[in-house]
């Protein structure tokens, strides 16, 4: 660790301020707590909110994992992991089960989280009503008075235009029958996983909001009686590990439009392959075909 940095980059007063916001958020699940977001050494939109929440949550004994769209090896994940290695000198891992703090962008790990794990989300726009009602004064009032009819107007518009609820990510949820919350841009496939054992913290740096879900909190995805919520995914098995129950990325292979489906959670896919699972295009399989 470079001695020039305080532990986890932020100064202690700032971390206390963020922890107070986190505790308030946990006490009122789904409520957006304003906090004095600091400028971080990375651009807005790269996870400044998540990084501040992680910095306030980390202890020297923690092991950290960073996910970007399910992967551990993409730019955002690598640079945030490096950031905390440099400023906090903590252990890092790519394995979900070994991590105690997981910062994520756009995915929830396939593996169930435990009670001693914390999941930190990076949130671009914390206000689920933003695109329906641009006035912040009005949306706050709507949250306060539980006026959430407008959220269903959006879903109505989806069905009227596309025949089904076409919202596929950042799908609005209602927390403990009270606050409507934006789950950050995770695929709606992940929505049911939000009722989990771990603590979930959401940080929006530019918008200066923190919200949270305590363990085992009820999280219901909004829907209509005759158009129920459907956590859909690509209708195919993973081409590397053969999993049929995971969220898949479609990877275009050539100019002719050939595509392969692979687990978006790279760590989960790797562990399945190590356990001997194979898919249609896994190396072992291809080898057999060639032989």
């Amino acid at each position: 660790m470079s001695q020039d940095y305080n532990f986890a980059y932020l100064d202690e007063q700032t971390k206390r301020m963020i922890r107070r916001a986190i505790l308030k958020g946990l006490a009122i699940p789904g409520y957006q707590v304003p906090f004095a977001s600091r400028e971080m050494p990375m651009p807005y939109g790269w996870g400044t909110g998540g990084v501040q929440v992680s910095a306030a949550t980390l202890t020297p004994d923690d092991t950290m994992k960073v996910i970007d769209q399910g992967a551990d090896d993409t730019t955002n994940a690598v640079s945030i992991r490096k950031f905390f290695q440099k400023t906090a000198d903590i252990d890092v891992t790519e394995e979900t089960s070994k991590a105690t703090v997981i910062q994520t962008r756009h995915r929830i790990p396939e593996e169930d989280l435990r009670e001693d794990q914390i999941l930190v989300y990076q949130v671009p726009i914390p206000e689920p009503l933003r695109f329906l009602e641009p006035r912040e004064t009005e949306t706050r009032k709507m949250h306060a008075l539980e006026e959430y009819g407008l959220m269903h107007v959006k879903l109505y518009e989806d069905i009227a235009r596309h025949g089904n609820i076409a919202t596929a990510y950042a799908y609005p949820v209602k927390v403990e029958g009270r606050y409507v919350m934006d789950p950050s841009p995770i695929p709606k496939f992940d929505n049911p996983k939000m009722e989990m054992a771990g603590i979930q913290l959401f940080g929006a740096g530019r918008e200066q909001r923190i919200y949270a879900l305590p363990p085992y909190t009820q999280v219901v995805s909004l829907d209509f009686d005759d158009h129920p919520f459907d956590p859909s995914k690509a209708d195919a098995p993973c081409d590397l590990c053969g999993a049929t129950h995971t969220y898949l990325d479609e990877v275009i292979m050539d100019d002719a439009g050939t595509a392969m489906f692979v687990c978006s959670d790279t760590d989960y896919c790797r562990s399945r392959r190590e356990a001997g699972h194979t898919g249609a295009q896994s190396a072992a399989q291809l080898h057999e075909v060639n032989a």
Partner: protein
Amino acid sequence: MTDTPLFSVRDVSKFYGGRIGCKDVSFDLWPGEVMGIVGESGSGKSTLLNCMAGHLTPDQGQVMFDTRDQGMVDTVTMSEPQRRMLSRTDWAFVHQHARDGLRMNVSAGGNVGERLMAVGARHYGDIRDSAIDWLGRVEIAETRIDDRPSAFSGGMMQRLQIARNLVTGPRLVFMDEPTGGLDVSVQARLLDLLRSLVREMGLSAIIVTHDLAVVRLLADRLMVMKDGHVVENGLTDQVLDDPQHAYTQLLVSSVLQV
């Protein structure tokens, strides 16, 4: 008619600093009755309407409404959640400019359905059916249900706004110059439509306008305002055919005869 008024205004005053918005206005509105408020620009009629509808807080006076569960309640002092609930169930407000009362980036069906969803409707098919029903009642073709209001003409937008407001079966409708800005033939159709809806549903309504033809057609009773004061009130025909106050006489004689 029942023996209690639906809506009762007592000594309502609103001041803008030293200037008078409206002063000491009192009246009762009975179920099924349509009340017209006329006056020239700046006479305080819109201020009065906004005070009654809860958009402005009056400086003095009471605005009592006969709620379904608690009887007569002063809407000025009731809590904000209650007042907002009232304004999306038992009350409706038709703006002069349809654009103020519609969501322009939401389809016609979504606009009509919004109030239903706001009071808890969660069945897409049912919401759509009542949207289609209401579009039919205001003479908008069913095929336009998924079009946005920005693709509608001014008259259609105004009719859509009326459908959107009446879908929850309100008991009291506030209208602020509902025919303003429309050409005369469209005005005539809209008035015809409003008259039949008001009669069919047994609505009570308060209509603010400067157009005497509108109140002649729609209103049972009439209030004439000038400089924030009510100068004359009575049955519509009586006030228009035998005006007593000098200002009312001027107003009535100012109507162009074609």
